[in-house]
């Protein structure tokens, strides 16, 4: 393995310029995925642009509106350990906590995870359920894309050539619950299927966002499911119907983790269980 060009820019603008100008360049964040792929000859970038030297990509900052910005270089362990991500935002912490194992959680970053966009990864459905936005930079500037639109296809995001993720914006946390339920073959594996749910509760009632991971090219969501659950959160039949709606929206494939058919079978069951746990969490508040 040899890489002709290794760059360590100090600003987002420099990084964007390098990525745009350098043919075959890829950005490097935690390296948990990219370096493993290079070792296995699955990726042979002509140049590497390390994001490690850009101060503004590090850490989780509270915003004026009460929301948060998670810098692209924030490690999974830091996200999992940040108690400010409470209420509806707890879904993200719960997902981060279940990624891989401690080694990978200390190494991998949120920018690398969602930039790579493995559909079985844990952040994508959690960010959809948290109603997050993804900030993308290019040589011309920056833009924000809703998480539900950011994930486009298998390993494909809204980032175009020369673009990269600089951060994730979370809305202010609302009182309620956020849960992430992951089914994997063994501890530390990617999900066979997962369910991310945020439940906001106030005087007007309950508002639910739910998304399914590992069951298609991108996180699976359904307006009908959110609406059904928001309208009748206590209702088992509504939960079952929401589960069916999500299973119908899913587009799973057979892989070494499980068959597509099993995933269709298990989605409504995982949804029902996650909803039941969320209700219990709301009642316990």
């Amino acid at each position, binding site marked *: *393995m*040899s890489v002709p060009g290794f760059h360590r820019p100090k600003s987002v603008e420099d990084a964007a310029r390098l990525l745009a100008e350098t043919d075959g360049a890829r950005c490097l964040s935690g390296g948990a995925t990219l370096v493993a792929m290079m070792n*296995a000859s699955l990726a042979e970038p002509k140049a590497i642009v390390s994001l490690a030297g850009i101060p503004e990509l590090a850490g989780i900052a509270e915003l004026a509106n009460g929301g948060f910005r998670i810098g692209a270089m924030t490690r999974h362990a830091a996200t999992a350990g940040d108690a400010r991500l409470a209420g509806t935002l707890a879904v993200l912490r719960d997902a981060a906590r279940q990624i891989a*194992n401690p080694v990978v959680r200390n190494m991998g970053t949120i920018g690398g995870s969602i930039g790579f966009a493995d559909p079985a990864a844990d952040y994508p459905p959690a960010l959809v359920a948290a109603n997050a936005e993804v900030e993308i930079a290019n040589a011309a500037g920056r833009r924000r894309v809703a998480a539900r639109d950011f994930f486009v296809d298998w390993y494909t995001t809204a980032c175009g050539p020369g673009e990269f993720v600089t951060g994730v914006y979370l809305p202010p946390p609302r009182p309620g619950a956020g849960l992430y339920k992951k*089914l994997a*073959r*063994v*501890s*530390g*594996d*990617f999900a*066979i299927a997962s369910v991310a749910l945020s439940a906001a509760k106030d005087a007007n009632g309950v508002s639910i966002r739910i998304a399914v991971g590992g069951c298609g090219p991108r996180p699976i969501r359904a307006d009908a499911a959110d609406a059904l659950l928001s309208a009748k959160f206590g209702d088992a039949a509504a939960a079952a119907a929401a589960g069916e709606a999500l299973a119908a929206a899913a587009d799973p494939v057979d892989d*070494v983790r*499980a*068959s597509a058919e*099993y995933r269709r*079978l*298990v989605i409504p*069951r*995982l949804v*029902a*269980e996650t909803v039941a746990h969320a209700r219990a969490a709301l009642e316990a508040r």
Partner: protein
Amino acid sequence: MSATAKAVGAALPRAEVREKVEGRAQYIADLYRPGMLHGAVLGSPHAHARIKRYDTSEALAVPGVHAVLTGDDFGDHRMGAFVKDEHAIAKGKVRYVGEPVAAVAAETEAAAKLAARLVSVEYEELPAILSPEAALAPDAAIIHEDVASYFKVFDTGSTANVCSRTSLTEGDAAAWDRCDVIVEGRFATQPQAHVSLEPCGALAEPDATGRVTLWSANQSVFRVQANVSESLGLPMAQLRCLTPRVGAGFGNKMEPHIQPIAVKLALATGRPVKLILTREEDFEIVRARHPFKLRVRTGALKDGTLVAREVEVLLDGGAYADDSPGVLGYSLFMSPGPYRFRYMKASGTLVYTNKLRFGAFRGFGNPQVSFAGEQQIDEIAARLGLDPLAVREKSMLRPGDKWFGGAEVGSNGLEECIARVKAASGWAKRAELEPSAPGRKRAMAAACTAHISGLLATGAIVRMLEDGSIVLNTGAVDIGQGSDTALTQICAEALKVPIERVRLASPDTDGSPYNWGTTASRVTYTTGRAVVAAALEVEKQIKQHASEMLECDAADLELRPGGRVGIVGVPDKAVSFFEVSARAHWARGGPIIGHNSLVFEKPSVDPKRAIAVGLPFPQIGAFAFGALVVDIEIDETTGKIEVKRAWSAADVGRAINPLAVEGQLEGAFVQGMGLALNEEMVWDGPRLANPTLMDYKVPTTLDSPHEIHSIIVEAPEPDGPFGAKGVGEIGINVVPAAIANAAAIALGKRFNALPLTPERVLRAMLGK
């Protein structure tokens, strides 16, 4: 330990554990030699094809490349433990995807890998045979056209794609007529990968005379020597085989991997060559656990007494015979389990297919037959409304009973194994267990097993150095299980010296006595016997010297703790080993050396009791016994099984090192859990779909139960070293069966295929 403490029975950490924990242990990939080149192989893209021609010119043009070898550079020499059907590298044909077809030695690993990819091979594709059923079809393509002419070590009955067949029958089939209940079923088990932490590799260094020193990841330096010699047509004496630390072997490193190719590259270049497989190559080209198809029928009386069993198996052996004929024979031999049957018949067929070799893997066919047999005992118990362990107790082999076929069973601690797991697990109250949370089902179930430890030849040399310290040399490779420590303990105990006074020489085919290998749960038992006998030789010589020094009869002498020899009943009349050894070295008799070698000689089968056809091992080993209870929970949402607790009892004869015994039982349990619950090598057409640790998953610490209770039972083996027999494999045998039995109790459904994935379990629960 103090001079008086007993070495045997001491729970000592392994001698080399500190080196491993500190990261200083040297494995094959850590070794370097001056002027060393790096090797790489090119794997076949086809499962079955004729090789038409090679073009190596592009590969040879890569800067730094010293040699590019293909099948044309290798003579027509074949190796194989039972059937000599395998060249060192593909020659004439390729028989599975990934099979090495060309090999390169170059200055750097990168150049070697690049050049290997640039070797172009022209193939004529042949139909790929990807299942044993396809192999047996009347018009099937033939994988080994010359199978009839291959050299075989026993009567295999090879024909067309059948590699071998074996049957063993004892008793009168009329026993079926007496049965009140008969259960019958078909079962299937999956291929499992060994996943030793260390992938396979080798380093070969030639000297000016053409003699080669070969280090490699292996379970037997002597099998390495034999296989390289056979497959390259070299005299064994031209090879010296050594071993660095081995990062585990579960059968995968017993027979050859790429050692012959590394040697050939070294001879071709005249330079040391190191060839280390990537994880992916290790998955694709080494070997794996056999998938079994089984048809099993078991019959019993109303009171639960077992009466008759018939077992028929079909084994996929992959592209080369390797250890498969042994696995077939052994699985049939073990298929009754540790029970008395009036009639028992076991027969099976092993076929070639276009997959990688299936071969030795901890349990050696026993987990597969146990998965079927031990479930049928539970089925019988359920039909009759009896306690499944009571059914087992009623028909279990008792001390003095012979094994299926008539082999002598020296010691038998099965009854105690069952009693201990029952007591420890709270078996009597198993119906009262509550699930840990709503939405979960919980059940406890059991299974029993036996296993051999033994087989073939072994030796030991015990040398006393000038200062009275001891060097033990056995040629047995410690693959991480702790045999170096156990053999040291045995030697120290036999000579009554502190364990620090005994050191173990590293295996070396030049200097060590022959040892067939670290396999078949055999090292502690067989090599331990040789160590005890060799130490006895040393004791005799010590006493001879001492009798002359103390002017007494040798018969009046005793060894005393701490390395002394003295007159019985006269405490102050003694000399030290130092004094004895100094005398031997400088004055009288010459250095003290004791040695012993033996081969396991007791017959597997008594021809007066049983009819055997094609049995691959006429003499097999001593019998160990075991019982297992598991407590599992099933998540009703997903179908995922979690093992909450396990109690694994094994009759090991004598625990030379209880800590190491527990390590083996725990490790075997977790590896068995992988087999039971999720591990499976999956093929996408002819190509392995999951040859990486991302896609192939073994259970982690977090998937293992917090409670794995290892229960040591000691029924001393009459000829074992201090009564010991083996424990390396027995703990894995019935893990899948016990978990399947528990799942059947929890769900009211039987599982006849492995692994019990969430998918398989949920579908069974929902009837889908």
